[in-house]
């Protein structure tokens, strides 16, 4: 499949399979983990991601679980990202755990090449950002 610009446009399924493999094998950055919730879902929509709290932040040592939902228009459109573990970040809705695209650059300016790994690693970076690093956090292990 060749897009108008001459680049190869990877179809959704291939793209997600690729991401699945990266997640399972820990390829890439390796500091985040993600995988599919339901291996039988042929549309591969529902994903779980985990971010290990970065060092030097209040999140150090914590494990944050997220739900990512890649609808059928992924990767044209970004997935919806929701924290399952409670967390206090400026870009996360305090009641639902939803990562609000307007406040999170990578969702706001989504590009096709971005992956869930991008999202997770950027969220991780977000945790160390100056406006988030010191925020008081809810008890570890609590969930939205």
């Amino acid at each position, binding site marked *: 499949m060749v897009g108008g610009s001459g680049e190869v446009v990877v179809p959704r399924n291939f793209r997600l*399979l690729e991401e*699945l*493999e990266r*997640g*399972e*094998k*820990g*390829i890439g950055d*390796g*500091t985040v*983990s*993600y*995988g*599919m919730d339901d*291996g039988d879902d042929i549309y591969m929509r529902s*994903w*779980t*991601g*985990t971010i*290990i709290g970065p060092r030097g932040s209040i999140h*150090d*040592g*914590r*494990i944050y*679980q*997220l739900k990512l939902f890649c609808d059928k228009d992924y990767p044209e459109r970004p997935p919806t990202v929701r924290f*399952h573990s409670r967390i206090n970040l400026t870009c996360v809705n305090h009641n639902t755990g939803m990562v609000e695209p307007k406040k999170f650059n990578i969702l706001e300016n989504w590009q096709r090449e971005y992956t869930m790994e991008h999202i997770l690693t950027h969220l991780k970076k977000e945790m160390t950002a100056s406006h988030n690093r010191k925020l008081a956090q*809810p*008890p*570890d*292990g*609590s*969930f939205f």
Partner: protein
Amino acid sequence: MAADDCADASSAVTINIRCSNGSKFTVQTTLDATVASFKLIVSRNCAVQPDLQRLIYKGRILKDDQTLESYGLEADHTVHLVRGASSPASSTPPTSANLPASTGVNTGATENPTNTNAAGQGGAEAGGLGGAGLGGSPFPGLSGMFGGGGLQEMNNMHQQLLQNPNMMRDILNMPVMQNIMNNPDLMRSMFMNNPQTREIIDRNPDLAHILNDPSILRQTLEAARNPELMREMMRNTDRAMSNIESSPEGFNMLRRMYENVQEPFLNATTMSGDSATDPGSNPFAALLGNQGAARARDPSQNPSTEGSDGSPIPNTNPLPNPWNNAAGGGQTNGTRTTPVGGDARTPGIAGLGGLGFPDMEQMLGGNQDSSPLNRMLENPVMMQMMQNLLSNPQYMNQILGNLDPSGMLGSNTQIREMLQNPQFIQQLTSPAALQQLRGLQQPFSPLAPQQGQAQNQTGTAGTGTGTVTPNMGMDMLMNMLSGGLGGGGLGVPNTTPNVPPEQRYATQLSQLQEMGFFDTQENIRALSATSGNVHAAVERLLGNLGQ
């Protein structure tokens, strides 16, 4: 994908482990191994003990009791390893010692945590709450007399208990208490037993709401158990009160609230409190009477004075803390009640806490009339014996000495004094009081010798109020005495010491796991602490994790 090279799950495969610090290593395992055993293997390659390991695969935290297969793990896949140092469970088991609920208290969970029908709870509650209210509770009749006659010793006893937060906490931590508090019906029926109270509640839906909401009751108990929380709650209440007061009409509103709620309430309770020898018929008499005695009033005051100084003028002073012994009666009334009528829930809770819980046993005690146990005790021989016993202080003394190998009375001079006070004894021997006393005398005796001081107090309290249970069934009473008290009791030999908590709470454990509490040890601790109440356990776990 590597799906094909490991079709046989029993053959060893290589798994990559990636630590949070970036280092990597590989381990060999079979895929049908459980996560727990996998952690053991992992621990040979790194410095992280199995119970500190958090393994993450495909975004999921691996649970110890699952197999690797069940997570779809395959050869050459990567599992992330995080050292779970931040979890209180993993940091050190002794952490629990610092927590409000000490596990020691809880190991004696009742044999069958699910067997919590109303009667069982009733009995058990009598025990727990009796303990909480200590002073009045062992002798419902006595408290009544005290209410009328103003026996100072009782006051002191109350105060002693209330000044001992540990004991209060222990009592409130008893699993039975938590079960009870989760049973709105029981609570409700206790309140509704008193026609006057019922009327008040009918007139004040707010109050009814509070009484009907188990979570409020539970919260109140939580507060009572945790001094910090309690202080915080009271502070909130005080703040809310002064805010109300400072707003225009706020003061009047408070006054109206007071007149609408507090006064009738107080009347309902003190009226029969003054008729006194039978406070059992009116649980609230004892409730407020003791309440005042316990923490609010100058010991020389008695419920009737409290009733009268409950004049419709609320306090203008900075709001006192009702838990504070030094506070004056009138003021305390103000603080206590207003929140009950108020719209703010938390203050309401605090107020209710101030109002009732430690004295709940009195309300339970109130059901005595119909008690078949009483009938048994009305046996003339028994009566005579009691009469003799009670009219002879020395004999009484001796008996109590015998009953009390662990020295509860010895160490609690107030009780001894009280029992040696001839006036008191005289009052004791009044027929009505006697009737009350007899109700508790019998169960008291077999229990007392077995338990240590703390248990003793709880035990006596429990038996005192235990007389309530007969109208729920004699056997439940017996259950309560043997199981409820023993189980709730602090380290008293348990009826089922041999069933490990993992087994006993298997269902609850899996529920907790489902909810995302993966630390089995911590879950077990929480469950034992709450006698298998998943809801309470979750709250406990959440609370702990924050610390």
